[in-house]
């Protein structure tokens, strides 16, 4: 059984590489039961969006 920490790693990985079907399955099952990790997933997606639009000031 994967912990929230394990799942948070996989969610972070999913921003950088495609997950294997086994990993995707583990994430999907976990997210059904865990709203904290579901939020983490949405929020790191948001971080990516923010970073993509960020323009450093001179």
């Amino acid at each position, binding site marked *: 059984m994967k912990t929230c920490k394990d799942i948070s790693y996989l969610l972070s990985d999913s*921003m*950088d590489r495609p997950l294997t079907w086994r990993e995707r399955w583990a994430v999907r099952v976990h997210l059904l039961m865990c709203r*904290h990790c579901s*939020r983490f997933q949405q*929020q790191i997606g948001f971080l990516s969006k923010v970073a*993509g639009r960020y323009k*450093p000031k*001179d």
Partner: protein
Amino acid sequence: MDNNQLNNHRIILLRYALLQLHDEAVAEDAVQETLLAALQTGDSFRSESALRTWLIGILKHKIADHYRAAERHYSLGEPTSEDKDDPNAALEQLIFDGKGRWIGAPGAWNNPDHALEQDEFWGVFEWCQKNLSEPHARAFMLREMVGLETEEICLDMAISHSACRVYLHRARLGLRECLEQRWFTTKRTS
């Protein structure tokens, strides 16, 4: 190698240069010189990613030249120590307990997209980013702002693939936590 092929990598190179040089005109110049140098060699590459790695290698030299000319202290691509020396290794212990459960569980963020339109939010984001340890911030920027693949980040920072994975994870944990505390807490609804 032709112009089109090089142009595909231009944006990534430019973002990379901007990250180091903080000056658009200087960054443009460095990228231009890199592309010219690349055109002159006429080498061929087995893949686009091999080409990009090579281009970034040239660009690093151009950036280093710039700093040398400006007589400023500069170092790039220094080997970064691996996980055991990671100053932010403690971060995970603050966020997860020994059984891998959330301690500071992510809260609900009310309408995050709205934040993007507020100047104040960008200041907070910048602050949070500076608050990360340097290698974490760098890995995150190379990934999410420059748009490099993880393999390219490993090469650039001279770290292993597993260290890279850990850095990106910690950067995301740290940024998320910081934005929640500094921005979303006051606006949280549940």
